[in-house]
């Protein structure tokens, strides 16, 4: 799995951090997504797919 994001679309909802806190974080001032690990371990795959599905700006792309 490889993750790409378009952070310019981020609305700072933080849904990704709630879904996959080891893969995503947010910038402190505006809440914009920070990708902590673009190539997460297999045990994170389910959480990452959930994060991509729930992102209100649809900016997380998961390549599998």
């Amino acid at each position, binding site marked *: 799995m490889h993750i790409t994001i378009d952070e310019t*679309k981020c*609305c*700072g*909802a*933080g*849904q990704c*951090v709630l879904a996959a806190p080891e893969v995503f974080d*947010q*910038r*402190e*001032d*505006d*809440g914009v997504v920070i990708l902590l690990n673009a190539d997460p371990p297999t045990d994170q795959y389910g959480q990452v*797919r959930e994060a991509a*599905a*729930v*992102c*209100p*700006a*649809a900016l997380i792309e998961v390549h599998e």
Partner: protein
Amino acid sequence: MTPAPTVVIVGASAAGLSVAENLRRGGFAGTVTMIGAEHHLPYDRPPLSKEVLSGLWPDAKTQLRDRSTLTELNIDLRLGVRAEHVDSAARIVANSDGSQVPYNDLVIATGVRPRPLPGTGGVQGVHVLRTLGDAQRLRAVLRGRPRLVIVGAGFLGAEVASVARTAGADVTLVSDIESPLSDVLGAELGQLLRRAHIDHGVHLKTGVKVAAVAHHDNQVSGVELADGSTLPADAVLVAIGSIPNTEWLAGSGIPVGNGVICDQFCRALPGVWAAGDVASWHHADLDQRLRLEHRTNAAEQGMAVARNILAADNPTPFTPVPYIWSDQYDLKLQIYGQTRGADAFAVIDGDLAERRFVAVYGKNGHVHGAVGAGMIRPLRAARALVATHEPWSSIEQGVTA
């Protein structure tokens, strides 16, 4: 052999797309038909009053999925087609192109449309903002730095005021509430927003009702207020709320009131569901009927509906913590839960005067909402208080400690 099941989704915006994607993600192998009245591929609406209106984004950036991704989802996508009638006994949707589409499950995701200001129909220069076309028209007008009067100081009105002022328009924001968003966010944040708009040169006319729109030769010339004064205008934006698109369900047997009336599973009838702005459902955790016109809710509710369709006889109640954001000037407000109708308010971190804060809202002795700006980690902690309905007494102890 029984034929493959069909899910028909009416509405091809964020909620409808979320249903389709999550059906496929959940392994649904049947037919997914998505019917959209607009001609565009599914696109995102929140940027319309922000990045699209300001010209920061090209219009194409609002597209939610590229064509190849939609092709992979294997959706029978019918754009520019309006669903006109449902026979919920026969389970058939009849469309404007004459087609009749049978379904096993129907998802209503037809959204809302702007509430019009009476007497403005057909008057040139009176705008609403819901679609990409609306945003393109208003953006073109803003290039001429017009005198723009915005009727309504909710999220849409306040955001457009911010963009239009930044673009050099002469902006007047008119509303019968006391400050921008004060009905939703309370007096304290209303004051903060009032200050922000005044600091940026917006004329605020609050606590006053609009009587009529003045026009000459069918071109808008001003907005007449109930106090007898007239605000001259080259253009007017009407931002006074929305009406759920449910008229097409008349006679279908599907319950309709303020939106499509659903149970706690977002189900209106057996095999009929609703998601997004149009869906009114019973939030079991809050024990309250909600209809949310929020982008985040569209995605989450679409996901919930897809899962409940796949779960057949074992659906799950939809109990989200709502989230909204609003960009006004350099201020990004982030809002969790419910703030409207709160009976208690406390700033628990930061400082309103510095526009960097976390505030919580209480109702009936419990935390119901949280609003933050510029403090994402403390705000996420406050979201947890909203999710667990923390007793307000613990907030008071925390604030005074």
